[in-house]
């Protein structure tokens, strides 16, 4: 009788848990509300996310319309053709522009972060670029290999006695950080696990014993100099008895500069760490945005000397992203520098967050939150006023803005 009961239980698990469950938006994506413009020298801006565009990206292709300000609608799924997707983000096939003719999407792809890249070529449009200086098209669709999937945890049965190991409720994350770097996983903003990446920057981290429900998991890594990447957030619904796997994670490079202020015409060194031998794109903003490429070394370190003679006087920002084996990271944090008439060296990188660390333990976590919460809606003491001026927004009181600053610098 006990054996039959176990058999029925396993039968149930096989049938109900084995089908792979996938997040809806990663299989049927739409266009990001911000990043929706491609550029054509001839047709001008091409909007993939306009009010009536209704663009959808699925594993098989694109549907809906794009809008060219000069040439009108472009049908992404015309009769007898259409833009196809090989489920890994490599696009092919043709769209039809009512005043532009056929547009070939071979050469356009969507990376694991949902960014379009490459160039589509048209009969009359010359080229439509998805990766020019100011254009970017982004979707929440993800290639199959980079998608959040829910798969059952293997169950084990032992013959004879008929014992049964209950399936685990768990999550796992794997991808690339920096060689030998510490990768930290936060569960609902509190440190839950950490692991070291291997010499090739690969990491894998998992967490079990979870309840079923909605979680906010976040990941960050620290490079060999102690610089932290920004947090990557994953809102995940965990189902009882299943393991949610996030694969293909590509943590953005770290970034630093050697000068906080640089005399126009001198070089500013932009450096950091990513995956070994990754192609690093360094963006420097100005009226015109500059993109420069450099190859990371065997340790993932990169360095680019940027000539500031091409920049206007004033504040500028730089950020970097990495690409390797077809995968592209998101952009790093942006760091700022001033182009002026003198040069001031930047502070050496520190492991401690520059703000919000109220108890000076080089972490921003629940302890700091608790200290700020104590002073929330209270008249602050003279001691705390000094601390607030140094570590928070300096308005002499604790309010939501201070907590927002803390949430930005959060390390768990």
């Amino acid at each position, binding site marked *: 009788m006990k054996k039959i009961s176990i058999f029925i239980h396993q039968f149930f698990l096989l049938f109900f848990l084995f089908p792979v469950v996938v997040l809806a938006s990663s299989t049927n994506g739409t266009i*990001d*509300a*911000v*990043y929706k413009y491609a550029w054509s020298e001839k047709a001008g801006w091409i909007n993939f996310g*306009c*009010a*009536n565009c209704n663009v959808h990206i699925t594993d098989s292709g694109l549907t809906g319309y794009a*809008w060219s300000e000069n040439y*009108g*609608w472009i049908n992404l799924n015309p009769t007898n053709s259409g833009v196809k997707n090989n489920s890994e983000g490599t696009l092919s096939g043709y769209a039809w522009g*009512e*005043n532009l003719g056929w547009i070939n999407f071979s050469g356009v792809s969507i990376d694991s972060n949902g960014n379009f890249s490459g160039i589509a070529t048209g009969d009359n449009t010359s080229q439509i670029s998805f990766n020019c200086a100011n254009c970017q098209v982004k979707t929440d669709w993800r290639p199959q290999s980079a998608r959040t999937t829910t798969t059952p945890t293997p169950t084990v049965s032992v013959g004879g006695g008929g014992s049964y190991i209950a399936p685990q409720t768990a999550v796992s994350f794997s991808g690339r950080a920096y060689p030998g770097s510490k990768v930290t996983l*936060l*569960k*609902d*903003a*509190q*440190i839950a696990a950490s692991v070291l990446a291997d010499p090739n920057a690969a990491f894998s981290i998992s967490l079990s*014993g*979870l*309840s*079923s*429900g*909605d979680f*906010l998991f*976040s990941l960050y890594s620290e490079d060999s100099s102690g610089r932290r990447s920004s*947090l*990557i*957030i994953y*809102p995940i619904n965990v189902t009882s008895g299943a393991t949610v796997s996030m694969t293909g994670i590509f943590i953005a490079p770290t970034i630093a500069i050697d000068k906080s202020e640089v005399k126009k015409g001198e070089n500013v060194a932009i450096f950091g760490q990513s995956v070994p031998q990754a192609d690093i794109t360094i963006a420097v903003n100005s009226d015109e945005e500059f993109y420069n490429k450099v190859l990371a070394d065997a340790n993932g370190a990169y360095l680019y000397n940027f000539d500031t003679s091409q920049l206007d006087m004033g504040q500028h920002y730089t950020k970097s992203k990495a690409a390797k084996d077809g995968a592209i990271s998101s952009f790093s944090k942006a760091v700022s520098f001033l182009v002026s008439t003198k040069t001031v060296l930047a502070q050496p990188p520190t492991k401690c967050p520059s*703000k919000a660390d*109220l*108890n000076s333990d080089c972490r921003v*976590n*629940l*302890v700091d*939150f*608790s*200290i700020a*919460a*104590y*002073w*929330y809606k209270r008249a602050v*003491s003279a*001691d*705390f006023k000094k*601390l607030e001026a140094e570590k928070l*927004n300096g308005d002499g009181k604790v309010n*939501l*803005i*201070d*907590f*927002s*600053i*803390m*949430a*930005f*610098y*959060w390390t*768990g």
Partner: protein
Amino acid sequence: MFKTYKIKRYLDLVVIALVFIATPVLAAEISFDTKINSVAVGQQFQVSVVLNTNGEEINAVEGKIIFPSDLLKLKEIRDANSIVSFWVDKPKLESDGQIAFSGIIPGGYQGQRGLLLTLIFVSRKEGQGTIELQNAKTLLNDGNGTEAVLSITPYQFTISQAVSASSTPLVVSPIIDKEPPESFVPEIGQNSTISGGKWFLVFATQDKGLGVDHYEVKETRQRIFGVFAKWVTAESPYPYVLQDQELRSYIFVKAVDKAGNVRIEEISPQNPLSWYENYENWLIIILGLAILYAIKKLLWRRYLKK
């Protein structure tokens, strides 16, 4: 043909222009999500407060929910499965018809359906009303606490005549919560601005079923006799000033969810007692000696009898 195209294009432009004028560009949105907008007197219904960041990255949110208390009675506030990791003001009924809340999402949240909290109401009498949000703010995850453009969609409802006694009243289905709150790591901290630099304890966790109801803390220098020590109710996320400032006690933190499930976490003493300072050890030694003495006595009597 060309003329038709031109007319069509102008019409499209007008439609697009109207859509853009009507919709604030890049505004995050807080709305009230519910399946119904008409109920009968005495029925329950559930309203979820949802954040759509519209492509922005939001890390802090606050507001005051206003509802007509003459029409609605608040039965329950649920914060389980909220995207808010830490509440600065845990959502609660502040005054008649007003629920205030504020909290943060470390690292920021970007998405279309981020649940903030869920409200369960019971309708009191016939009428029409609106649930709205006042003084609401959402802040960007930019390190400066910049306020995001925010639009709010109020929820309008109608309460009709009571259903007949024979029909089944509409009730929000209860959540069966058998799982304890999530595991967590309480931390000990110190800061010159808190209680004159005394050591304090901080703790927080989430419960994915019905939400955390309350926390209790126990400090004890004795491991075994600690079972008799008293639990003291404590509040998260505020610092709990420790009684044992020498940090020689075991500290237990109990998180209790609204279904009564319990999770207990423990912190070992940072400066544990030496073995001779712990009376438990002396009691064990004395007990051991007493047993040895009793055995000896027993054997001695038997020996004498022989």
